[in-house]
């Protein structure tokens, strides 16, 4: 639990339209952590995650992954960064017309040749691995159904399996349970914890509900207007901090 896997230094991001979404953010992520990012809508959480796996280009600052700056990598190197830092999304982002299995297999695309991908020639080994990951998130029986026939919670588990197929070292989760009902919420969060604890994959997860934060996070950072305003353990988020992060008069909502 001590080795630093990601080190973010003075990271800033200003969008083309002039919106500054991240302002001079610095923090470290330790290997094996379950780090949760909280903050109001629009505070920059999604932007932060998308900068970390280079879906977005940061405006300035550095991101050290195993001590190597990945902020200025270009071309193919970016793809291998994305492969090692997987991601799941609020809207799951599966390909609706494809089967569950094919969706998981797309996690194997990084580094695959043009012809092989053109004809979807995934190896037998890839397929059995994909099925294993589906088993890990408890959904292997649905492997041959179309992805859009699954419920939201099931789709998010498929998305986790797709990310696992990349064999990532870090998994980014952008509000993974925000479009799910409270019961399903915990199922998905429990699988994320399983991925974290059993596979040792570092997790950085954006969350809305503080009760979930207290239950799953090993450490928390909070963003407000693109700035880092809190860094600590979940039980350090007192009423005072809560008001500071979410604004005066904010009230906590509980998910049981």
């Amino acid at each position, binding site marked *: 639990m001590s080795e630093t896997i990601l080190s973010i230094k003075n990271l800033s991001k200003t969008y083309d339209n002039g919106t500054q979404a991240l302002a001079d953010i610095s923090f470290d992520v330790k290997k094996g952590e379950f780090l949760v990012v909280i903050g109001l809508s629009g505070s920059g959480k999604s932007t932060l995650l998308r900068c970390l*796996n280079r*879906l977005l280009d940061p405006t300035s600052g550095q991101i050290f992954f195993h001590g190597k700056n990945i902020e200025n990598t270009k071309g*193919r190197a970016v*793809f*291998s*960064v*994305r*492969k*090692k830092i*997987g*991601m799941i*999304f609020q*809207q*799951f*982002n*599966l*390909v*609706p*017309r*494809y089967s569950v299995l094919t969706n998981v297999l*797309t*996690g*194997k*695309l*990084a*580094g*695959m040749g*043009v012809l092989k*991908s*053109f004809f979807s020639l995934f190896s037998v080994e890839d397929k059995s691995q994909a099925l294993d990951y589906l088993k890990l998130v408890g959904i292997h029986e649905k492997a041959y159904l179309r992805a859009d026939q699954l419920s939201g919670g099931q789709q998010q588990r498929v*998305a986790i399996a*797709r*990310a696992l*197929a*990349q064999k990532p070292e870090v998994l980014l989760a952008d509000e993974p349970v925000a479009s799910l009902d409270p019961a399903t919420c915990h199922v998905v969060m429990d699988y994320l914890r399983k991925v974290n604890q059993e596979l040792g994959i570092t997790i950085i997860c954006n969350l809305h509900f503080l009760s979930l934060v207290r239950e799953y996070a090993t450490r928390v950072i909070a963003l407000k207007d693109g700035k880092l305003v809190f860094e600590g353990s979940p039980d350090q988020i007192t009423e005072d901090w809560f008001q500071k992060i979410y604004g005066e008069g904010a009230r906590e909502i509980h998910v049981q």
Partner: protein
Amino acid sequence: MSNKNRYFLKARIFDGFNILFILMVATVVLIKPSQNQLLDLKFNSSLALLFFLVGIFLSSVLSQKGFLTWGNLIFKSSSEKPPQPISWYKTLWGWQALIILTLSIVVGLVMTNFSFYEILNREGIDGALRLLTGIFNPDWSILPRAVNHMIETLFMAFIATVLAIPFAFVLSFFSARNVMESRVGFLVYLSLRTFFNIARSIEAIIWAIIFSVWVGIGPFAGMLALMIHSIASLAKQYSEMVESVSMGPVEGIKSTGAAPFQVVWFGIVPQIILPYISITIYRWDINVRMATIIGLVGGGGIGTLLIQYQGQAMWPQVGCLVVVIAVVVCLLDQVSAHIREAVK
């Protein structure tokens, strides 16, 4: 330029053209220009420019005074408050619209030599009756020839569509805004879109004339003409489909570390494949109809036969061709509608 200024400018230009039109018509009516005067492009365009500037000036003055011109009404910015609901005949724009529309219709009728006398002319009616009698008594003896040429036309349209598909498919991604995100990409997107628009605005029949000189009269020229036109049309329609895909799956595939080709192939293509099939079948349908017309200028197929018989006033033979064309077009229309419904 701020948005408000842009709307203001558009309104002035619109009104300018309105007034230009009214003044031009007035000038023609008052002066009754000779043929030579009508052909004096230099003088006439200077006059038009003058009228246009007068129009812009008038429109600026009027709208400064608080009148709502037709241009103001059409190009008002969304931030402006909507005009008071008053009867149209109490407004400037109402009268402006009325005058422009009436004037356009009158000028149009005059230009097309609209004449009840010609429609009811005895000799003309007799001629038309002869033609129609011929067409309604088709000469079935040429049916085998007609069918052979129709088959040529069908395949001309089919091959043109099939050969256009791969070009249009590949080009459609390079001309979609959401795929070409980088700065260089934007230039590629812009030049391709411009090229498609130009190629499409040249009718297939013009391409057929060009190719009938290039490769000689016949079905090959017609096929090439349809192919060029189909590439441009399909690529434009395809790329609009690409631009309408949901970007979620695309982002999902991107996040796995997939290369751009893989992102397109796995993230975008599965979302557009059905609309593509539908669009393509419809294009084949259109191409069959166009292929008939293209034959008229030497593009081969049944159109070529049609123009031959028509030139010799062989109306019963023309009648047979018309029946064959109508039956095939109708059938194809039904078939393509059914297939498109099925792949929805």
